């Protein structure tokens, strides 16, 4: 029961993107189309599960002083493997993702889960935690990617869903959706929606207005 919780909690309740605000840069960069968003999601989830498993396996043998270096080395190895696989079997999409697969190494999410969870938990929970966080990240990326590709180009996975004005149809794509600010807006609105439904996610404000009696 509690093992399942490792996978389900990061979907909404502990979502790495909308609650912990991690992995934002890649969420902005690769969500212009659904295909790149999906590829990135799969790549990150695989790296997260694999690195969490390996780090958890050898967690008793990692000296505390150099643990970050060891974690990064393991994560980087996984990323290189994924990058090579993508280049071998999905060259076109790996070209479109350009450096962002390589930059999974620096994704705060991967190192964050390794340091916070895999370093101090057994293998199975660590792998499940990695899977859950990967799926939580993927969920947000796919939502943002769907919205941006549909409203920005009228397509989903590159297939025309509605005919655009340029092709003689009626749909006028919103150019803004293909630009990075739209991902900020969409993620912000998602955070807003989730926190409206789950008020316990709302952070306490740094400053509050003092209640004062009105002077007569």
């Amino acid at each position, binding site marked *: 029961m509690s093992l399942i919780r490792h996978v389900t909690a990061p979907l909404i309740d502990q979502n790495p993107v909308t609650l912990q605000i991690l992995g934002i840069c890649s969420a902005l960069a690769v969500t212009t189309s659904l295909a790149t968003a999906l590829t990135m999601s799969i790549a990150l989830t695989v790296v997260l599960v694999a690195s969490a498993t390996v780090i958890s396996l050898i967690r008793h043998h990692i000296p505390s002083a150099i643990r970050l270096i060891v974690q990064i080395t393991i994560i980087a190895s996984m990323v290189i493997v994924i990058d090579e696989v993508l280049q071998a079997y999905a060259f076109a999409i790996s070209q479109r993702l350009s450096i962002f697969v390589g930059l999974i190494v620096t994704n705060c999410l991967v190192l964050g889960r390794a340091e916070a969870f895999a370093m101090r938990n057994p293998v199975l929970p660590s792998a499940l935690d990695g899977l859950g966080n990967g799926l939580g990240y993927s969920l947000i990326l796919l939502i943002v990617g769907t919205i941006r590709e549909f409203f920005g180009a009228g397509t989903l996975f590159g297939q025309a869903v509605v005919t655009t004005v340029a092709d003689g149809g009626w749909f*006028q794509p*919103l*150019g*803004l*959706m293909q*630009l990075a600010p739209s991902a900020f*807006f969409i993620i912000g609105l998602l955070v*807003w929606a989730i926190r409206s439904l789950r008020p316990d996610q709302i952070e306490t404000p740094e400053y509050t207005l003092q209640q004062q009696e009105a002077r007569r």
Partner: protein
Amino acid sequence: MTPPLVHFRWTPANVSVTQTAAMLPVLIAVWAAHGPAVLATLGVAVVAALAWEGVFALIRQRPVTAHGLTTALIIAIMAPVSLPLWQIAVAVSLGVVLGELIFGGRGFGFLNAGVAALAFLVFSFPGVALLQANFWVAAATVPGAVLLLAVGLAPWRPFVVAILSVAAVKLLSGEAITLTDTGAALLFGLVFLACDPVGGAATRAGQWLYGALVGGLIGLFAADTGPAITANAVVFAVLLASIFAPLLDYLVVEVNVRRRRNRAGRAHV
């Protein structure tokens, strides 16, 4: 018994009404230039802006305001009349909600909602050219501009500095300018967009810096648009400068605090 003193104070409602009054002549001039289609744009913009204000007033249980009127007027004056009305509605909705209402309403954010909506229009739809001005539009901007500058609703410092820095950039680059287009875009853009009490800097030194930033950016953005300074360049310059305005204010306050602390320190030694 002393008679009750009535103090006049600028409230958000007063500000909105005065800004609306200042923009009415411009609207009439645009109407005369482009025909009654501008009224349809205005109608859609007013409905969209006020509807969102109503929704947020309902959610936040606050009294309904009508600040959206000024935003709608800016859109009606600046947006080309040939734009489909749904594009106006989408742009106004995003501008008002993301530029103003999510921060808590007018006066709580750091952007002019009109600027946000216009920037959205230009970013999203290809080939949008804002504010197609003629001589009468430029002339009709003058009374409102004088009114706002005179009562201090549009601070004069950024206005003057921005004009000077645009002129400086244009002189340095040695380009001629056509007066009508440039005049209308500059005057309307600077008074109603750049010198908006919400979007600009608040401290005195900050206002000088903000004005220089707006003017410099206008000169930069208008570098490749030929002799006329287009309203598009003004809108983007104001958008970027508004984002930096809080930083400018922060720096000015910080410098002042340092200066006073040093002075007090020396006095104590």
